C-alpha cells in the first residue's frame, strides 16, 4: 500500500513540474489523498467496444497509480446520465449522487450548465491542464460557442469526416453540391443518420456551413430571421437530395454505427463519422473492408472536443478529477491515439509538450485508412447549440409526416 503510494507520488512529482508550485501542489495533493479508495462511476456512451476497452485500461492505471477504481456505466445516449442527475436533484439527493463523471459536450453540456447540475470549475486545478491550449478561442475553451469556464475537461478530439469504399467509388464528392450531383447519378447509395441522433444533426450542420453564405451568424444564438435566411440554401439543396437517398429518404439509420454497418453490407456507398480514426479502427476490427477510406469536403469540417464533466452531487468528485487529470497525461493521450488502441486524436497542444512526449507521438504508427492531420483540412467551429435544436426541429417539421 505505502509503496504504491510513494511510487505514485514520485511519478507525479517527476512528471509534473507544476507541482513545485506550492499552492497547486498542496490542493492537488489533498485531492489525491481524498481520491484514494474512491470508486468513480464514469457514465459514457457504451456502443463502441474500443472506447469501452480504453476506459477499462484507464481504470486499471488509475487504480494502480492512485488507488482510484473506475467503473464505466455504459449509456446508449448521454442524455440518460443527464436525466439521472436531474432526477436526483428533483428527489433532493444533493450529495452521494450516482454519477461521478460524464462524457459530454454540446447541447448536453449546455443543459447541465444552465440547470446548475455541474461541479466546478475544476480544470485549472488539474496539473496536466498545463499541456492544453486554454486560450479563450481554443476549442478547449468553447464548446458549441458556450464558454467551458473550467466546468468540463477535454479528453479527445472529434471531427466530421465521410468514409467510403474505394473499391466502389473512384473519386468521392468533395463538397455538398458535388455530393448532391453524385447522389443524383447514384440514387439510393447515400443516406445520413436520423437527425434525432447527434450524428444526423451534425451532418445537417455541416451542410449548413458548407451552403450558407454568411457563417458568422451561426456563432450567435439563433433568431427566427437569421434562421430563415441562413437555412434557405440548405433546404433547397436537401429537397433535391432527399429523393436520391437510400430508401428514398423515407427512413434513416438510427446512428452512425448502423450506417457504418450499411456501408459494410454494401447497401450504401458513403457513410460518415465524428472520429477521423474510426475508419482505420473499423478496418482493423473487421467491420469495414480493407479498401475503406476517409474523405473530407474542401473547406474543412466541423470539429469539436469531447469533454468529461463532474455532476454537482458526485459522490467521488476527487476521484473524478484524478481520472480527468490522468486522461490528459501525455502518455495516456499517446496511448489513446495509438491506432491499435483507440486512434482518437489527442487534445494536447504539441507546442506545450516536452521533447520526449512529442517523440512518443511521432512514433505512432499509421494505417491506410487513417487520414493525416493535413488530409483533414481546417477545423470549422460548431454553430451555437441553439442552431442544432432549431435545425432538427425544422427538419422534423418539413420531412416527418
Amino acid at each position: 500500500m505505502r509503496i504504491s503510494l510513494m511510487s505514485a507520488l514520485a511519478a507525479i512529482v517527476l512528471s509534473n513540474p507544476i507541482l513545485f508550485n506550492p499552492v497547486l501542489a498542496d490542493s492537488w495533493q489533498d485531492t489525491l489523498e481524498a481520491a484514494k479508495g474512491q470508486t468513480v462511476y464514469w457514465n459514457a456512451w457504451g456502443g463502441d467496444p474500443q472506447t469501452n476497452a480504453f476506459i477499462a485500461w484507464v481504470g486499471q492505471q488509475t487504480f494502480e497509480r492512485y488507488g482510484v477504481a473506475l467503473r464505466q456505466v455504459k449509456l446508449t445516449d448521454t442524455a440518460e446520465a443527464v436525466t439521472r442527475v436531474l432526477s436526483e436533484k428533483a428527489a433532493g439527493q444533493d450529495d452521494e449522487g450516482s454519477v461521478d463523471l460524464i462524457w459530454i459536450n454540446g447541447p448536453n453540456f449546455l443543459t447541465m450548465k444552465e440547470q446548475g447540475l455541474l461541479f466546478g470549475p475544476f480544470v485549472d486545478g488539474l496539473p496536466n491542464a498545463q499541456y492544453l491550449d486554454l486560450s479563450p478561442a481554443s476549442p478547449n475553451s468553447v464548446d458549441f460557442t458556450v464558454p467551458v469556464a473550467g466546468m468540463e475537461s477535454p479528453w479527445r478530439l472529434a471531427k466530421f469526416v465521410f468514409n467510403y469504399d474505394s473499391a466502389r467509388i473512384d473519386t468521392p464528392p468533395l463538397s455538398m453540391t458535388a455530393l448532391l450531383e453524385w447522389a443524383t447519378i447514384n440514387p439510393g447509395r447515400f443516406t445520413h443518420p436520423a437527425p434525432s441522433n447527434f450524428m444526423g444533426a451534425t451532418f445537417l450542420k455541416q451542410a449548413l456551413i458548407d451552403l450558407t453564405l454568411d457563417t458568422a451568424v451561426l456563432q450567435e444564438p439563433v433568431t427566427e430571421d437569421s434562421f430563415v435566411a441562413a437555412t434557405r440554401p440548405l433546404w433547397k439543396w436537401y429537397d433535391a437530395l432527399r429523393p436520391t437517398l437510400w430508401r428514398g429518404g423515407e427512413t434513416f439509420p438510427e446512428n452512425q454505427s448502423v450506417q457504418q454497418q450499411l456501408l459494410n453490407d454494401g447497401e450504401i456507398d458513403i457513410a460518415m463519422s465524428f472520429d477521423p480514426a474510426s475508419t482505420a479502427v473499423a478496418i482493423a476490427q473487421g467491420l469495414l473492408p480493407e479498401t475503406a477510406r476517409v474523405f473530407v469536403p474542401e473547406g474543412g469540417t466541423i470539429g469539436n472536443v469531447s469533454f468529461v464533466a463532474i455532476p454537482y452531487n458526485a459522490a467521488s468528485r476527487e476521484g473524478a478529477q484524478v481520472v480527468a487529470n490522468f486522461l490528459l497525461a501525455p502518455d495516456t493521450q499517446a496511448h489513446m491515439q495509438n491506432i491499435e488502441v483507440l486512434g482518437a486524436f489527442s487534445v494536447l497542444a504539441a507546442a506545450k509538450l516536452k521533447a520526449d512526449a512529442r517523440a512518443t507521438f511521432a512514433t505512432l504508427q499509421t494505417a491506410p485508412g487513417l487520414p493525416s492531420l493535413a488530409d483533414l483540412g481546417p477545423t470549422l467551429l460548431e454553430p451555437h447549440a441553439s442552431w442544432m435544436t432549431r435545425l432538427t426541429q425544422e427538419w422534423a417539421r418539413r420531412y416527418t409526416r
Partner: protein
Amino acid sequence: MKPTGTGLRSVVLAALLLGIISPIAAGLIQTGRAAFGLMPVVGAHGSGLEVWRSLCALPGFWTSVRLTLWIGFAATFLSLTLATCFCATAHARMTGRSAARWLAPLLAAPHTAVAIGLAFVLAPSGWIARLLAPLVGWVRPPDLALINDPWGIALILGLMIKEIPFLLLVMLAALSQIPVQQHMAAARGLGYRRSVVWVKIIAPQVWPLIRLPVLVVLAYSLSTVEMGIILGPSNPPVFSVFVMRLFMAPDLAMILPASAGALMLAFLMGVASATLFVAERLVRYTGLWWIRAGGRSSTVKPLLRIASRCVVALFVIGALAMVSLVFWSLAWRWPWPSMLPETWSFQPWRNAAGVLGSALGNTLLIAGASVFVSLALAILWLEGEDRKGRGRAGWGEVLIYLPLLLPQIAFLYGLNMLFLRLGISGGIGAVIWAQVLFVFPYVMIVLSDPWRALDPRLIRAAASLGAGPLRQLLTVKIPLLLSPILIAAAIGTAVSVAQYLPTLFMGAGRISTLTTEAVTLSSGADRRITGVYASLQAILSFAAYAVAFMVPAFVFRNRAALKGAGQ
C-alpha cells in the same frame, strides 16, 4: 380453516399492494405531474394542458400514434389467429409438455436478439437476399424497404415470431382444462367437420382462459421500444420510440411532453383493451347466431392449413434469426454477398470474456432472487385462494397483471424518483424489486391454471389422513405441481434476463447485466458482439427450461405419472 385463509390472503394482498401496486401508482403520479407541466426542477410550475398541446404539435405525432395502433392490433390479431389455427391442426399430435419443450427455444430467445437476428435475415443485404442474389443477378443489395418499412411489416413479423409461441403455450395450458376429446366426439357425431368444431366449440371455451395473456401481448406490441428501434420505421418511429426519443433529448424541458407521451401510451393501451372488449361482445352475439344456424357443410380446413404453414414458416425464420446471430458471434469478416462468414474468429467471445464475469453474475443473482420472490408470492396467493375456497375476483386479476398492461416508460421514471427518495436506487435490491413487478405476473399466468387443475380428491385424501393445510401444501401440492412450478420459474428467468429498462433505471446504470450490455452494444451495431451476448442470454434462459424439464424427470424417476416426460 377459513380464518387462516383470510389471514394468508390479507398478508399476500398487503405484500402485493405495498410491493407492486404502490410503486407503480407512485411512478404514475410522478409522470402525471410532469405531463401536466409540474416539474419545478426544470422550472415548470404547472401550465395545465400546454404540455399536451406541444406534444400533439410535434411533427409526426399523429402518424406515430396511428402506426402504433396499426402495428399493435395487426400483430396481436395475426398472432392470435395463427396460434389458434395452429393449435387446431396440431393439438391432437402434441401434448402440453412436449409442445412446451418444442417452444422453449423461441420462448427463451430475448426479444432484442430475435429482432437483431431477424433484421439480418430479412434486410436487403441479409441472408435471404444473399441466397437470391446469384439467381436474380443482384450485384449490390436491392434498395427495398424490407426492414424499417413505413408500414411496420417487419416489426409485425418480429412481434409475431415472439408472441405466437407464448400464446401457444397458454392455449395448450387452457386446452388441458377442456375435455377436447369428448367435445370433438359429440360434435363429430352431430355431423360437424373437425376444423369447424375447433372454431365453433373449442375456441369460444378457450377464449376466456387466454383473454388476459392476449391483452398482455397487445400491450407489449403497443409499447415495445427495443424491437421498434431495430425493426420499425424511423421517421416517425412507433410511438414508444417517439416518447423514448423525447426522454433522451438534450433539451431537458422535453421531459414534460415525454411524460405526457408516456401517459398517452398508457391511454392507447386502455383504448386498445376497450376495443378488444367491444370486439369480444360483437363476436359473442354474431358468433352465437352463426353457431345456432348450425351450418354443417362449411369447412375451414384449407384456411387452418395455410395458417399453420405460416406459423411453421415464422418459426423457421425465427430459428434462422437466432442461428445467424450464433454465426455472427463466430465471424470476423462477413461481407455481402457471402452466405457464410469470410473469416472466422473467436475474438468476439474473447473480447466479451473480460466484462462477462460481473454481468453474468449479476444476471444470475437478479434472476434467481426475483424468480424466488415471485414464485413464493404466487404460491402463497394461490394457496390463499384454495383456503378461501373461492376463485379470483376480476380486480385481483387486474391487480396481478397491471405491470404488464401499462407501458414501462409510463411509470419507471417516476418509480426511480421514489426509489431515490427511499435511498435504494442504484442498488441490486432495487433492481430485483423492479424486476419482480414483471416476473410475478408471468409466473402467475403460467402457474394459475395447473394449480387449479390439480385433482381436489388428492387434497381431500390428504386431509382425511390428518394432514393440516401446511402439510397439504408442502407434501402434496408442491411436489405434485413441481413440473409447472419449474416451468413458471423458467419463464420467470427468461423474463428477468430480458428486462432492460427496469434494470437500467433502478440500477442507475451501475448494475450491468447481459441485457444491458447487449443493448448498449447494439447501439454500436456490431452484430458479432450482439451475437455473443444474445447467444448467452438465450443459453441462460434455455438452461432454465432444461432444468425445468430434467428435474421432475429425475426426482420422479420412480413415479410414472409425474415424470414430466409426457403421458
